[in-house]
């Protein structure tokens, strides 16, 4: 398959770029932040996105979706990365919807997917329990009591957890921390008795929650009991690739703004972009970004093609993108100089978003290790 996007995908990308530039530029994120918006995103905007089909882009037609494919979704995420648009696209459109799509039974899909697509339902994955992402190390307990399970434990860094309607909670029904077997996904109402949600503003001005579970009754299993790990892995692989596409947009925009600045800003009577040391550093970044672009489209195609190597591709993509966005946003601040350190200048927002995205669904070291593990070394 050629590593280029087709006309339909290009049209979506272009129209998304125009829409976002107008409706959700970086200034909109700044506004959400300065207003201390606890929702973390603009509800009306999300509604509009849903109406355009963004939340149901990869959902099959039978559940009201567009079945447009992942390469297309990637273009959307990339454009949202460029404008740093805050929305439940990642938490719900990418992760929540996928968990239901891949693990849910027919009834669950029919009940939930159309609502997600319509922008009416926020469903987010509650998986991390400590600072480092490591699904197999999940310890949250789910003990069977009659027809129900009782959940106890704590989840952290739950994206949009403060406004979610439904939580997909990964808990341990068997085995011990470190075992891949024995994990189960539960669909839990966010209002359920025993749930306490602590809202947290993150560095990127988006929101996440710390959620504690005290004897929370969960009746609804998503997928198979004890067998959740495999489908969870698929969900997370797709999540990694999706967020990589978003990060690609963020790094491209940050880089382009930096190159523009290098051309405009004068020091010692010449544009600073005429200094060879900065030129070479810019050229190195250009190269790394080219590599990232190839990885993202290759990985997006791999989802569409059910490539059996998806996990390895997801990990290498997330790792490489994570390191490159670190490089690019750090260099951006340095090259903008004092101006880049001020909150008035937007470039800092890119570095902050980069930092949060880097640790979402596993950081560089996690994915580097996983990549090697998958190859058997």
């Amino acid at each position: 398959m050629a590593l280029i996007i087709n006309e339909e995908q290009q049209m979506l990308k272009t129209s998304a770029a125009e829409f976002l530039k107008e409706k959700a530029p970086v200034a909109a994120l700044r506004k959400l932040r300065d207003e201390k918006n606890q929702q973390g995103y603009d509800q009306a905007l999300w509604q509009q996105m849903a109406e355009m089909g963004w939340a149901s882009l990869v959902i099959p037609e039978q559940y009201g979706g567009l079945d447009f494919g992942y390469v297309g979704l990637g273009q959307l995420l990339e454009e949202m990365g460029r404008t740093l648009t805050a929305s439940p696209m990642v938490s719900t459109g990418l992760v929540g919807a996928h968990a239901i799509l891949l693990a849910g039974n027919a009834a669950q899909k029919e009940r939930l997917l159309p609502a997600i697509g319509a922008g009416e339902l926020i469903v987010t994955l509650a998986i991390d329990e400590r600072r480092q992402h490591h699904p197999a190390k999940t310890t949250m307990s789910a003990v069977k009591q009659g027809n129900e399970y009782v959940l106890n434990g704590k989840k952290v860094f739950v994206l949009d957890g403060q406004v979610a309607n439904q939580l997909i909670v990964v808990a341990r029904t068997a085995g011990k921390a470190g075992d891949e077997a024995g994990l189960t996904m539960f669909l839990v109402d966010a209002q359920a008795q025993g749930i306490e949600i602590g809202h947290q503003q993150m560095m990127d001005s988006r929101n996440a929650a710390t959620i504690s579970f005290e004897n929370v009754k969960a009746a609804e299993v998503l997928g198979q009991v004890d067998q959740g790990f495999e489908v969870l892995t698929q969900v997370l692989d797709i999540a990694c690739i999706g967020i990589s596409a978003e990060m690609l947009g963020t790094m491209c925009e940050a880089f382009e703004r930096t190159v523009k600045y290098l051309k405009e800003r004068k020091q010692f009577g010449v544009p600073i972009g005429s200094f060879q040391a900065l030129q070479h550093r810019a050229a190195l970044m250009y190269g790394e970004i080219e590599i990232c672009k190839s990885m993202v489209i290759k990985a997006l195609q791999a989802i569409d093609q059910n490539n059996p190597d998806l996990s390895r591709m997801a990990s290498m993509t997330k790792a490489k993108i994570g390191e490159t966005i670190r490089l690019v946003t750090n260099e951006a601040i340095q090259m903008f100089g004092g101006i880049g350190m001020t909150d008035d200048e937007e470039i800092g927002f890119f570095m902050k978003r980069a930092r949060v995205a880097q640790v979402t669904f596993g950081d560089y070291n996690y994915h580097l290790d996983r990549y090697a593990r998958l190859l058997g070394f």
Partner: protein
Amino acid sequence: METITQQDLDVFRAETRAWLEANCPESIRQTPKSMEDVFWGGSNPHYKSEDQKRWFERMRDRGWTTPMWPKAYGGGGLSKQQNKVLLEEMTRLNCQTPLFSFGISMLGPALLKFGNEAQKKEHLTAISRGEVWWCQGYSEPGAGSDLAGLQTRAEDMGDHYLVSGQKVWTSYAENADMIFCLVRTNPDAKKHTGISFLLIDMQSEGVSTRPIRLISGKSVFCETFFDNVKVPKENLVGELNAGWSIAKYLLTHERSMIGGIGDVRKEKPLFQMAIDAVGLDNGKLDDPVLRADIARWMIDQEGLMWTIERTTDEAKAGQPIGAKSSFFKYYYTEQNKLKYELLMALNGTEAAIWGDTYDEGKLARDFCRTKGNSIEGGTSEIQLNIISKHILGLG
């Protein structure tokens, strides 16, 4: 200068020790937690405590806020050796510095070298006595690394200068009584030769300030605007159009301070913080990549400290330091940025918390703040240029 015998010094040490023990309040015998906790002086002084006030006044009265300045200007008149003794004795008791100000660390040295008698008398005395809070006006939005490219103009109006323009990164300008500035007095001269060093009253009509919010949040930095500000002629320091040499003198001074000081706070070694965050697995940090990164950082950090030590020893032995301070500035700030990169990695998603206050998101905000280390006080690029030109002779 008269030579002081070892015996004299021993006597001085004994007296000083006794005096400090008698006069430094208990609550002052600890390292201040932040720059917010130190005493800055000024026309509207703000003391953290009665003890802080008492300590400042006692030290001021001995001239020990500026121990080596001449007594005639409110200083202590101490020799280099005596000053060393005083510092050693203060360190022994962990006494806080009684007065911290850019007047002492920056303007003072400039006035001592370049000021006329009247200026010394007036300003040094006020600085020693903590009566005036000074801030610094060098940088401008259009200048940046090209400091000499500054555009703030001072026009000679016969009996006064008329100043218009804008300064940026003027730390604490909101609190300051006075500002020492570089201004352009000859717009036709080559850029380094048309600059003068001017003292401006912040209360003058036409001066205004605006605080700067950084990517890390609230900061002490301001922008300072001058809109047709009248400045008396006697506020010119040194010759007209010869301000650049004063600026250079102070910049070298500043760079060696930044590079040399190291982190004053005592904190756990990085590997210990790593163990706390990530834990051990079979005796090794439970992330082999981070383990190697941290080992590398610690090795470089210790190497840097030893290099500062070696350079100090070499200087004592008469070898010139030259432009080495640029290397220290470069390496120290790059190491500090890297340290915060590692702390972020160690703390994963927890490090991404920002919260509503600085303390809630301290790590993330400190991290953001470190990004400025390689920009302020001369960018890393400028330091590498200096090393390359002045140490290696490339150019």
